């Protein structure tokens, strides 16, 4: 018999379950709309950050927030590779910095794989504000097919602003403001740095970390040193 059947098959995974547990879809939805008893445990009220606590920890610590998000998080230094310091949060998401330049993020939802900077990049290499260059280049690397990923090469122009006072967890700093306008390969963004007026240590920064994540605001609560 001649059969003329056009089969349009949809394997529904939504309701599936197995010896390995319920389907990942079901589990995730349940996790969001039906929190488990464990999730319902009242979270400890976040400890107030004080200078004493920071110094007691003995760790390099930064505070990070994605622009447009309400949540600010604390990350502490956990590894050093060359001049690259990786900071990790309580949720195992990481931010890596070369000096004060954010060179990588992991787990935030739009990974920045790596950044190449010029040897005289004052964001990566501690440089007194009076010596900051006016132009520099960087290569931002993002995930894409192949080992090299997608490399975005940028030309950046640094403009010096005025001096101001800021306070970060009980400490006051006199800082020089810099804006950095970068462009290349269809990408344009403006970073902002508040650098110590004398040493050039960047205490606060707004840095672009990719088209998916946008800007990451960083505050340095305790800078990394090799001491």
């Amino acid at each position, binding site marked *: 018999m*001649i*059969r*003329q*059947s*056009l*089969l*349009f*098959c*949809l394997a*529904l*995974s939504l*309701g*599936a*379950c*197995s*010896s*390995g547990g319920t389907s*990942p*879809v079901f589990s*995730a*939805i349940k*996790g*969001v*709309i039906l*929190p*488990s008893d464990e*999730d319902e445990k009242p979270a400890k009220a976040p400890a107030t950050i004080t200078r004493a606590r920071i110094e007691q920890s003995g760790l390099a610590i930064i505070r990070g927030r*994605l622009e447009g*998000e309400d*949540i600010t998080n604390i990350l502490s230094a*956990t*590894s050093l*590779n*060359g001049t*690259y310091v*990786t900071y990790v*949060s309580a*949720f*195992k*998401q*990481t931010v*890596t910095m070369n000096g004060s330049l954010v*060179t990588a993020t*992991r*787990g*935030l*939802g739009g*990974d920045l*794989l*790596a950044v*190449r*900077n010029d040897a005289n990049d004052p964001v990566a290499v501690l440089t007194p504000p009076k010596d900051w260059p006016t132009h520099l280049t960087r290569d931002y*690397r993002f*995930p*894409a*097919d*192949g*080992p*090299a*990923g997608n490399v975005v090469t940028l030309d950046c122009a640094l403009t010096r602003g005025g001096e101001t006072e800021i306070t970060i967890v009980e400490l006051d700093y006199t800082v020089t403001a810099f804006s950095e306008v970068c462009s290349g390969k269809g990408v344009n963004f403006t970073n902002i740095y508040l650098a110590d007026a004398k040493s050039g240590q960047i205490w606060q920064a707004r840095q672009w970390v990719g088209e998916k994540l946008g800007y990451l605001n960083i505050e340095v609560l305790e800078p990394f040193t090799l001491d």
Partner: protein
Amino acid sequence: MMHILFRTLPAGLILASSTATLADSPSFSLYGTAGLIDMPTAQMLPDGETAWTFTQTNTMVGGTMAFQLLPNLETAVHFATVDEWLGGTLYDQSLDLKYKIMDENGYFPSLAIGFRDFLSNGAFSSEYIVATKNVGYGLAVTGGIGWGRLGSYNSVGSLFGSRAPSISTGVDFNHFFRGDAAFFGGLEWETPVDGLIVKAEYSSDAYLGEQTYGSFSPKSPFNFGVDYEPFGGISMGAYYNYGTDFGFRITLSGNANRPIVAPDLGTGPVPVNPRPQGYDRNTAWANNPAAQDAIVKGLIPLFETEGVVIEEVRLTGNSIDLYVQNTKMPMTTKAVGRITRMLSVALPHSIEVFRITPVSSSLATTTIEIKRSDLEAQVERPNAGPESFRTTQFSDAENTLGDGAWKRDIYPDFSWSLNPRIPVSLSSGGSAASFDLLLNASAGYRISRGLSLNTSLTQKVYGTIDTGDGFSDSKGPSLDRLTADYLFKLSPATYARVSAGYLDRKYGGIDAEVLWKPTNQNWGLGFELAAVQKRAPDSFLGFGDDQTLSAHASIYWDTGFHGLEAQVDVGRYLAGDLGSTVKLSRRFANGWEVAGFVTVTDMPFADFGEGNFSKGISVTIPLRWTMPLETRSSTSISLGTSGNGGQRVGVGNRLYPIIRDYDVLDLRETWGAYWQ
């Protein structure tokens, strides 16, 4: 529960389906491809776009699965039911192709050449050359010339010779651009109302067949309509055609390149710290079995946090060989990267060489060798991606580490799963659409690595699909599979499988397969032999009288171009017909796959089923694309024909799909995830 550091994740996002179509996506025609109403345009869907379209007019009920195979190549499988055709009902399937020759540039329009029903001179067969220009204010102007069906109204004559009547359903290319040609054109206006498009066209399709065989009587060549896209991923259209006909369209679309959830959302990898200068190079610990055991027992829970299961381990003073199963992460390279980092944290400093071998369905695949000092020198550095791939060695793995290695003691192992399924038939029994609600239960009992017993039962809960062969009539549960399976390797690059028992719903017997696929090679060769007997449709375990031998030689080729893979099978199918199946698929690094196949055999038209060949398309969408969690699960949707000819046993564990993600080309493609 997923904890998010910076980004909050609304539950609605998790529940959302495929959304977020690009703003510059073109609108769809009644053929389910980029176009006006009945007429095509030179526009293309975004690369990687998949669109499912359902249409109804007074003359036709249709469905289309369209896929932008390459940035310049649009493909579609179009299904149509025409009630009045040659004294009966026409169930037509066609492969439609459109290639963009030139992008719109300055004063020049975009230019495309297209084929409807590319493989045969059937009811919808036509060819065209079309140009489209955006002229501003949201207005796009299209003009073109068509042949075949698109050259049937107000034709300007034949330019390249005569054309046979469009009644062929066999493979035929002789009709291209032959017969009468006619001009067509139209306008498309993107109104200021968000998502609303107004269209008007002059059609060159005279609907000659519908007039001749049916009662359709077009009164005008002009068609008018509106398209509305309430939100990304869903588009609808309503049309008034030929002065007499109303048409409706709904299209659902998604794109592999636009994940609903960011693929990198989750936890980061373990940070790596280099070994200190002058680290302890003493390897004496390796002679102590208790120390080795402690290391392995320490690694097991560490790896479990990333969904990695250790199958085998061999430790020496300066190296570790690991056979692992990645149960969670969609990308093997991401799992390998995280394993490498964890090893660098957990292992004695004297261990310099990490050899990691992913195991897939009991088969050891490619051994990935990474030097710890390379990892330490590369991590977080700007060129870590390309440098790490350059310094990593890849080789074909032995199937086991052999005697003396630590082996996971889990056998025997029992597993099961329960899945609902809803097959939909678009033309079964002559009705436009019918569906079943099925409950499928599967179970596996692994006796040792490679040797297992597997079964699958399906119970129809509700349904009306009639496949016409008696197998769809069963009221009780049907036994879809009851097999003993043995998967093993004949050599590091040669995989093998033997399956015996009830192989699928229709056949039982023995099916054996061998696949030669070196990891450093982008092609492989396979051979499969099945000695089977047809099962009785009305019996749970009984067999019929038909016995047959089916054999196929296969070549697999990963082109390395836009993720395109080709597979050609040549041999003897179950009905004794000789022929070949060509399968082309595009696989994305994130796990999306869109595949199409065509089978041509020597079976006569009348016996084969629809046409002299069968064809189909399938889309596989990884759940990670829609969900913020690491999972290797996926959902598949398939659309195709099933005639008597060109059929093979429905073996569920063929070798190439098991191992294809693990060769060097695939690992290279996804190597960016190694550092993630």
